[in-house]
C-alpha cells in the first residue's frame, strides 16, 4: 500500500461509503493520474479560476505530488464518473492536527471534463465530498476560496449552502453541516445521492 492509500486507511468503512455512489467514485490520487491532472490543471479554463494561474511544469507537479503524499493534512481525490476520471476534489485541514482530527477543512473541486463541469451532475461529487467531511470525518465547518470573477462557482457553492464570510478578489466562503443539510435536500432528491 502506498503512503497515499494509507491516508484513508484509518477511516472506517462507513466514512468511506460517502466516497462512492453507483455513478461516481472519489479515489485517492495516485501516480498514474498525474499526467492527466497536469493537463487539466494547465488548461486555460482551469488556470483562469486558480489562485496561482501560471502553467505548471511536470517537474513541479511531481515535486508537489511527492510532498502532498507525505502530508497528513490534505488529500486529493480523482473524481471518477462511470469509472472515467473527470476531475479533482481536495481537502486541506486548517489549524493543527491531521485530516482525521480536523474540525475545519478547506474544500476544492474542479472538473477537467468540460461536459461534466456545466452539468447538473457536477453537484454529485460536491455532495459526496461535503458529506464525507461532515458525516465521515466529523468536520464542523468547511471553507472554500473562490475568485470573485468566478460567478458560476460562487453560485454553485451558494446552492450547496456556502455563505460568503470575506469579500475581496478572492472570496472566502464557509459552510456548516446544518446549512448544507438544508440546502442540499432538493439536490439529493434530484441526484439521488
Amino acid at each position: 500500500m502506498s503512503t497515499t492509500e494509507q491516508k484513508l486507511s484509518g477511516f472506517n468503512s462507513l466514512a468511506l461509503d460517502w466516497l462512492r455512489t453507483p455513478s461516481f467514485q472519489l479515489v485517492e490520487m495516485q501516480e498514474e493520474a498525474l499526467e492527466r491532472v497536469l493537463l487539466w490543471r494547465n488548461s486555460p479554463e482551469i488556470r483562469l479560476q486558480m489562485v496561482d494561474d501560471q502553467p505548471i511544469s511536470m517537474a513541479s507537479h511531481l515535486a508537489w505530488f511527492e510532498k502532498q503524499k507525505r502530508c497528513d493534512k490534505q488529500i486529493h481525490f480523482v473524481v471518477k464518473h462511470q469509472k472515467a476520471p473527470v476531475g479533482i476534489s481536495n481537502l486541506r485541514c486548517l489549524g493543527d492536527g491531521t485530516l482525521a482530527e480536523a474540525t475545519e477543512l478547506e474544500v476544492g473541486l474542479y472538473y477537467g471534463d468540460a461536459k461534466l463541469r456545466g452539468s447538473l451532475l457536477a453537484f454529485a461529487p460536491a455532495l459526496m465530498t461535503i458529506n464525507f467531511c461532515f458525516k465521515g470525518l466529523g468536520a464542523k465547518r468547511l471553507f472554500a476560496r473562490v475568485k470573485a470573477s468566478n460567478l458560476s462557482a460562487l453560485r454553485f457553492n451558494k446552492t450547496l449552502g456556502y455563505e460568503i464570510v470575506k469579500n475581496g478578489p478572492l472570496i472566502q466562503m464557509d459552510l456548516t453541516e446544518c446549512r448544507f443539510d438544508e440546502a442540499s435536500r432538493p439536490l439529493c432528491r434530484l441526484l439521488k445521492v
Partner: protein
Amino acid sequence: MSHSKFELKQLFSSTLGIPSELVTDELAYNADPRWDSTAHLQLVMAIENTFGITLEMDDMLDMSSVAKAAEILKKYGVVWN
C-alpha cells in the same frame, strides 16, 4: 394539461435571468454562460413545480435546449397549445 410555449419560455427567462426576447427554441445549455449547472438545477426544479411533474434523471440531463425541454415535457403529459 395544456400550456403555451410562451409560458415555458417565460420560465426559462426568469430562471436563467435571460431576457425573454433572447429565449428561442434554439437556446442551448452551456451556450449562454448564464445557463450553467446551477441554473440548470434551478430550471429543473422550476419545471417540476410549474408543471407538477417529477423528471427522470436522464430527462433532466437531456434537457439541453428550450426545444428539447418542450419535447421532453410532452412525455410527461404536457400538451402545447
